[in-house]
């Protein structure tokens, strides 16, 4: 089916390629949400041989030009028909009350629009906004009839129409939603501005809210990652090791490719270092990985690696390991996932380290982390990417929990790091709790982080209650 670009790449993706031509689409949203900006993008996306007409009831043409210029949108190919009142309407007291507005305005308005349409023969029209016609109709029936007839007139001319509405509790726009072939909603929630398609006759579309931003360059839409329905099957599952024999032995060779692994434990135990080891070993085998640092400064991360004598700098410098510092307050969650996806598609990244889940949660701005992390990790995994999630647990000792965010179900593999107190000494233990695609060494081992990364000690024997952090000799239990 032929599709017309909306002029916004991310929105086209949500609409499975764009708008179906010669139909009408409603853009809904409160003031300042980006309705006019989206309309301008749509009109500027004309192909050769097409023409675009902007019918505006609110802003004068000069103001539309300057607003578009401020956003960096070139509107030179658009014909503007501004039906907004000029300043003289106020200064010369041109308001009236002898007739109803419908009696006076409707006919000349219709004539002006018809004249513009016949003169320019547009293939794309944006009407901003159709709510204005409501005030010119004598009743709701007349309004609906008029809108239907107006849209039919335009689409029968071969035009694809976008029209905006301003809905409020006093003046809902449910009628326009029924009339339109498609409905695009511009909204906001706790995590930022979103776009949501709620209707698209004759086509499927990607459900749900997707983050968007109106900034320099206009509107950007970041389609939310939804895991593909099928995993990309790799007939030969590869193993991702650390290059440290004892860890790889515990993992029976390493983590299987395309799986999701949770590295969990309290602060300062070496979770990021362990993840780095997987990335370094992957680079040694010629596979590219990406580490997204939400919390630690990149300079500190690199310096620490250097102090531990981890060979991170070289693969980082030559691009085998991509490290990106992510400021969660600056990113929208969907924007971040889109960035990760781009790196997978454009840079051929095969392993992604999310450091950490808490930082990702900050980027969500209050949205439920579990659902979003599910979409993120499963989405990457089904693209054939191996995912490492770094998860910090607040409790240093005490009752053992894999995660305080209820995300353990998501993981194919769980590696946990644990503090334990023995004879007044704080020691570290590492263990594997789960590994879906192969067996593993189910014994706990002590470990230390030092030069070269992890030094794995002997399996812990003769102690009970290690997971609680305060083990006691087995014969005392």
């Amino acid at each position, binding site marked *: 089916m032929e599709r017309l670009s909306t002029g916004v790449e991310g929105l086209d993706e949500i609409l499975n390629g764009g708008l179906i031509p010669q139909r009408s689409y409603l853009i809904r949203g409160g003031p300042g949400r980006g309705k006019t900006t989206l309309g301008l993008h749509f009109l500027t996306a004309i192909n050769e041989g097409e023409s675009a007409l902007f019918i505006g009831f609110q802003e004068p043409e000069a103001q539309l030009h300057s607003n578009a210029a401020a956003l960096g949108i070139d509107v030179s190919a658009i014909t503007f028909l501004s039906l907004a009142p000029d300043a003289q309407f106020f200064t*010369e*007291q*041109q*308001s*009236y*009350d*002898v*007739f*109803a507005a419908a*009696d*006076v305005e409707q006919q000349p308005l219709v004539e002006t629009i018809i004249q513009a349409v016949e003169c320019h023969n547009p293939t794309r029209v944006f009407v901003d906004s159709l709510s204005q016609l409501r005030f010119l109709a004598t009743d709701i029936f007349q309004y609906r009839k008029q809108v239907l007839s107006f849209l039919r007139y335009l689409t029968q001319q071969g035009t694809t129409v976008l029209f905006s509405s301003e809905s409020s509790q006093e003046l809902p726009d449910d009628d326009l939603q029924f009339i339109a072939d498609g409905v695009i909603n511009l909204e906001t929630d706790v995590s930022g501005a979103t776009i949501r398609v709620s209707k698209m006759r004759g086509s499927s579309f990607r459900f749900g809210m997707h983050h968007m931003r109106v900034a320099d360059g206009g509107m950007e839409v970041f389609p939310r990652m939804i895991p593909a329905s099928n995993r990309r099957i790799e007939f030969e599952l590869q193993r991702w090791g650390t290059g440290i024999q004892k860890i790889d032995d515990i993992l029976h060779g390493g983590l299987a490719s395309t799986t999701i692994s949770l590295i969990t434990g309290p602060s300062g135990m070496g979770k990021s270092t362990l993840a780095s080891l997987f990335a370094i070993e992957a680079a040694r085998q010629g596979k590219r990985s990406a580490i997204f640092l939400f919390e630690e400064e990149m300079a500190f991360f690199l310096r620490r690696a250097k102090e531990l004598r981890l060979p991170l700098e070289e693969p980082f410098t030559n691009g085998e390991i991509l490290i990106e510092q992510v400021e969660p307050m600056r990113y929208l969650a969907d924007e971040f996932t889109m960035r990760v996806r781009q790196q997978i598609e454009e840079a051929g990244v095969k392993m992604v380290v999310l450091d950490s889940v808490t930082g990702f949660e900050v980027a969500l701005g209050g949205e439920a982390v579990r659902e979003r992390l599910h979409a993120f990790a499963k989405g990457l995994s089904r693209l054939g990417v191996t995912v490492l999630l770094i998860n910090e647990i607040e409790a240093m000792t005490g009752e053992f929990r894999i995660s305080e965010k209820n995300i353990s179900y998501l993981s194919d593999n769980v590696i946990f790091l644990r503090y334990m107190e023995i004879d007044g000494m704080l020691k570290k233990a590492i263990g594997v709790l789960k590994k879906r695609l192969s067996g593993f060494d189910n014994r706990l081992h002590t470990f230390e982080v030092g030069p070269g990364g992890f030094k794995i000690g002997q399996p812990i024997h003769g102690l009970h209650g290690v997971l609680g952090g305060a083990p006691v000799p087995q014969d005392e239990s």
Partner: protein
Amino acid sequence: MMAAATAKILLIMKQPGNIRVMQQVLSGLGYPGQGIPNVTELQTALAKAPHPRLGIVDITDFGSNNRQIHAIYTCLQEHSIPFIVLSAPQVFNLGNRSLTYGATNILQKPIAKSALLQLIHGLAA
């Protein structure tokens, strides 16, 4: 028909927007409309030939100044000019009283264009 087309209609009202839309509506039917904002200009217009065929008075514009409204009615009556009174709903009682001063009709704003035109046809023809 020709006489009706050239007959002037006095628009005795102050609001420029009302005069403008009235003139637009009347010109569509071939009636020139002249805006008259006060009694003095009304007297001047009535002194000139040809005599207007009809007056339309928007009493809302003259507020509660009964004396001024009364002077307008008197002026129009003295020159045998039929007139229609337009009134806002809140001063409709005041408008009703205009019937006793010779108004042929009183209409409440906003008025239906078609009703007004029908009335004008009957009075100005």
